[in-house]
């Protein structure tokens, strides 16, 4: 596997980031706060008021380092990118495949199979670790029921021959999964009753939303590096400005994010006071704890998982990239199906 390079998240306000030979240098005022060799980077994500020199931008784009600007709350603002790598043939096949209803359904189905399979893995993992604890008998029974229902949804995906019915099954599975998600949270302060976004109305949902955004960014860069068009999806409908394929690809990897969020809470790396409640009832993570989260996410990306198709272990941070590659190879005719990442 290609070595996992780092994504640097810069959230120091009024930072000035520039190039010094082959290094990235971050300054605040006259003080140098960080110096990193650029060849070790995969991406640069800036939160809020961060300035980058054009020479660093050029160097980054030549070396495949994407630069993303988000506002202080993680909302996407802009992206800096060098010339798109050619591979017009791959993109053309992708677009033609996307226009073919049956082919799109087949790809969307495999991706969602991966998602449901991995959601089930999250529940199973929890049952294995905590299922036999005395205080959890009733909980374990509910989790077992949910796990069985997920298996049923997973089997039913095979019979879906339209995007709508696939989405229906996926929605059903999400209800089952998030219906028992609260049992996986072992810190009583944190309550969760349903998945709510736009805006997230509790800290758990705020964490999920924020981390899904990070995942989608990673999927988007992985697709672009591979030469695929992140805007043209198979499951998610085309909509101007929406990275539909990045969202498609993120589906099967979301359960890894869920596990990550659960571990942040359960290991008490975050507490309720790390969140800010806004007048509209929405929650966001404060700046300092966001630093904690991003550091933990960078660590988590280094952890490896067994990729059952490649039969080798892959760092979690490389999964968007391996999956983008499988998708590209499938579209180019190397194999007869897309193969999602299955979490064993």
């Amino acid at each position, binding site marked *: 596997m290609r070595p996992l390079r780092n994504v640097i998240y810069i959230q120091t306000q009024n930072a000035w980031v520039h190039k010094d030979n082959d290094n990235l240098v971050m300054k605040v005022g006259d003080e140098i706060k960080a110096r990193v060799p650029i060849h070790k980077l995969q991406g640069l994500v800036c939160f809020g008021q961060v300035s980058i020199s054009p020479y660093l931008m050029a160097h980054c784009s030549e070396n495949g380092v994407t630069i993303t600007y988000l506002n202080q709350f993680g909302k996407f603002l802009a992206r800096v990118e060098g010339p798109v790598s*050619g591979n017009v043939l791959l993109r053309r096949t992708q677009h033609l495949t996307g226009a073919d209803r049956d082919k799109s359904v087949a790809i969307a189905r495999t991706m969602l199979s991966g998602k449901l399979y991995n959601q089930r893995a999250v529940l199973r993992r929890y049952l294995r670790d905590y299922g036999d604890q005395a205080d959890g008998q009733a909980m374990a029974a509910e989790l077992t029921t949910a796990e069985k229902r997920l298996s049923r949804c997973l089997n039913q995906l095979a019979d879906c021959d339209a995007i709508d019915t696939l989405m229906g099954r996926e929605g059903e599975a999400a209800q089952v999964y998030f219906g028992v998600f609260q049992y996986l949270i072992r810190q009583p302060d944190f309550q969760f009753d349903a998945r709510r976004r736009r805006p997230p109305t509790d800290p758990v949902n705020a964490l999920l939303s924020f981390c899904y955004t990070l995942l989608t960014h990673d999927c988007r860069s992985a697709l672009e590096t591979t030469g695929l068009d992140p805007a043209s999806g198979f499951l998610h409908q085309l909509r101007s400005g929406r990275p539909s394929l990045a969202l498609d690809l993120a589906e099967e990897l979301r359960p890894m994010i869920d596990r990550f969020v659960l571990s942040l809470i359960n290991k008490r790396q975050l507490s309720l006071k790390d969140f800010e409640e806004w007048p509209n009832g929405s929650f966001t993570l404060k700046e300092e704890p966001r630093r904690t989260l991003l550091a933990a996410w960078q660590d988590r990306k280094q952890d490896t998982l067994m990729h059952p198709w*490649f039969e080798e272990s892959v760092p979690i941070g490389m999964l968007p990239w391996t999956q983008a590659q499988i998708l590209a190879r499938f579209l180019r*005719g190397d194999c*007869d199906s897309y193969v999602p990442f299955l979490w064993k």
Partner: protein
Amino acid sequence: MEPEPIYLSRLQHYLYCPRQFALIELEDVWVENQFTAEGKVLHQRVDQPDKQKRGDIRSVRSLRLSHAALGIEGVADVVEYHIQPDGSEQPYPIEYKRGKPKQHRADEVQLCAQALCLEDMEGLLVPEGALFYGEVRRRHVVYFDATLRELTLQTIQACRDIVQSKTTPKAVYKAGKCRNCSLIEQCHPQDFTRPASVWLAQQLTEN
């Protein structure tokens, strides 16, 4: 319309592995490894366009070559013009390679294709040239005989077939070759030869 030219340097990719050629030519896949990086450094030294004359040899570096009828083009590292007693000049192509002479004929075919271009451009016969290998630091003379010329023409045609069909050949795994290939991580010669749909169905029904 003229067909898109095949680059001289790509012929050796085809002979090494047709899939490697297609990945580079059709899919813009390129990854540096130790071997390609060494080759690049070696070429940075020869790739400065330059003319020199020493005794009865005039040498030209980074000479652009093409052969319209064959649809090939590229750049020769060095072409020496050997001045004959009658004052005429005999072109003599020299290609720089890292490493040492190889079992397969990829380097010779690339050089022969340069000779074909020179013959077309200069209107005379080019009977021999040389490969300069960085590791052994010596010239290895190559005669452009009928067999090599035939192999070169066949290779050009095979490359053109891939470019026109826009299809990347399936991977064929050969341990020694694949391990030295910088594209192995992009190519996955061992993975995509398995039937993916059968494997996936099995995984999903297993509990």
